[in-house]
């Protein structure tokens, strides 16, 4: 029963990893940018929520009303002010600039909030659970996170394939020059994509902060989880990213069940195995 339980919990953690991964996948999909600071932005959102919760004395989930727009605005400014200037044929500039950004965010958080481990206090939902028989129970919070992941991915899927904004994203991604002749402002579109990505990052950061402890140094590990979910799921496939997140969550849960020290290691190894067997991921997007 312990094993079944571990796997069920792993699936639900996968929802959180999928949320981490969605933002990364979105940014890469639209502007071919791999954001090394992605994990640190997740942690930044969690700390932002912490500050809002402490300052206004509100529930962490309510803080999303502030954290999501602030992170989105930050994303817009970041893309427009810095990252747009790094995009081009060469992969080095975006990589190195976001690497620098990662170090800056980590140390700014360290200076502002100290190295102490923090947690967003969410009251009863942290421990509430729904029994599903045979000694198994599903936590309310993991369920909320999992459902959020599905809603966010479904929502992005809708935006990308059913709306004008999505068409603009895809057009700019496919051929920025032709898109420009249609009156599309590339800088603005990319900045909007980053804003959308950081809105998702904000949701992911707050939910993570309620679920686990965090400190300024844990961003890079979140980047790696997000990256692994994206690659395992198959580049450019948002639902695949959810599958990748679940595989990662289950692998970590199985590892932790064998030996607590193997939790993260098992996730990395699952990723490397997928990389050997299916270098393009399990569900690569079919090019149409």
């Amino acid at each position, binding site marked *: 029963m312990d094993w079944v339980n571990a796997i069920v919990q792993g699936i639900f953690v996968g929802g959180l990893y999928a949320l981490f991964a969605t933002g990364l996948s979105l940014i890469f999909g639209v502007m071919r940018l*791999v954001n*090394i600071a992605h994990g640190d932005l997740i942690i930044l959102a969690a700390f932002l929520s912490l500050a809002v919760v402490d300052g206004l004395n509100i529930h962490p989930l309510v803080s999303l009303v502030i954290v999501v727009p602030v992170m989105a605005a930050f994303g817009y400014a970041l893309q427009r002010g*810095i990252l747009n*200037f*790094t995009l081009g044929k060469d*992969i*080095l*500039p*975006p*990589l*190195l*600039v976001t*690497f*620098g*950004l*990662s*170090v*800056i965010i*980590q*140390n*700014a958080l*360290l*200076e502002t909030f100290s190295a102490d481990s923090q947690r967003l206090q969410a009251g009863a939902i942290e421990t509430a659970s729904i029994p599903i028989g045979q000694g198994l129970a599903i936590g309310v919070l993991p369920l909320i996170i999992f459902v959020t992941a599905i809603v966010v991915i479904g929502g992005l899927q809708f935006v990308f394939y059913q709306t004008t904004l999505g068409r603009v994203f895809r057009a700019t991604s496919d051929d920025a020059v032709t898109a420009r002749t249609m009156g599309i402002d590339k800088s603005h579109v990319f900045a909007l994509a980053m804003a959308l990505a950081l809105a998702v990052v904000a949701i992911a950061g707050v939910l993570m902060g309620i679920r686990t402890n965090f400190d300024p140094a844990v961003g*890079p*590990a979140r*980047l*790696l989880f997000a*990256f*692994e979910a994206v*690659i395992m799921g198959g580049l450019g496939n948002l639902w695949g990213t959810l599958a990748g997140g679940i595989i990662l969550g289950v692998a970590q849960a199985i590892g932790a069940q064998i*030996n607590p*020290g*193997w939790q*993260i*290691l098992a996730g*990395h*190894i699952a*990723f*490397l195995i997928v*990389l*050997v067997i299916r*270098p393009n991921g399990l569900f690569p997007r079919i090019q149409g």
Partner: protein
Amino acid sequence: MADIPAYAVSRATRSSRIGMAIGLIVLIILATAPWWAGRADLRLLIEIFYYLALAQLWNLLAGYTGLVSVGQQAFVGLGGYTLFALAAFGGVNPLAAIALAGVVAAIFALPTAFLVFRLRGAYFAIGTWVVAEVYRLGFAQVSALGGGSGMSLPADVVRSIADGRQAREWLVYWVALIIVLAAMAIVYALLRSRQGLALTAIRDSEPASESLGVNTYRTKLVIYIAVAFATGLVGALIFLQKLRISPDAAFSVNDWTAFVIFIVVIGGIGRIEGPIIGVIVFFVLRELFVDFGAWYLMLLGAVAVVIMLLAPRGLWGLLTDRWDIQLFPVRRALVVKETKDSG
């Protein structure tokens, strides 16, 4: 009808000859440092040497071969741990263990390359980081090596390096100097060779260089493994100086990759002179601002970001834009010896 003027292919320039002369003087000063520098100065110089060596190696990988790895800490850590394991449990002389550390790092580089070479560009970068994390978490599970808290080099092993503390520190200093010189000499020689041309071609366009007969996969693999070997040597040296190792210190992405990347970017990527300038700037900034802790690291990150945005070829790039100087010429130039009348 114009005659073809006599010409020769030359790489040396006046500035490179002056540069070599200055380099030789600096080298003599550095080699005699144990007699004129204090203990703290020697420690700082060793640190400068291994950062310079790591920066040259990363520059070869990313700047010339196009393999942008952010997982070089894997080989620093493997080198360090190999030294500790061989010296503490194998009874191997620590200096001999340094060489073996390079070999072990190169052996591990082969399966690592097999995995990460499946990823391209930026994904390759993060893939190398994942593998480095696997090594870190793996070593944390080995209780013989102290698990997550690490281990110190046993006192009798430390004593076996040399007679007395001063002799040991001097010896480690000279080994560090030799390793950094060797790393630079290898990079320089490689870039001037046929392989160097192949490397530059791969960096500029992989499909084009393949169409001209460059075996890009094999060339990249050879460079990746050679760099891993040398990085392993440097890793062994680093922890021979520190006398203590732990998974977090050995496989630190900040210490062995982020700072190294900043050094290369600030100095100028894709030039041998770049890391030299970068390492000087890095240590000057550090000595000035080290008391500011996190602020110093923010400043360093910001400097690297600004340079990448405004001067992508680094400080050395700014210098060469103004004056045509090169200390380590790898380009070939046609020198016209004499021109005959042209009608």
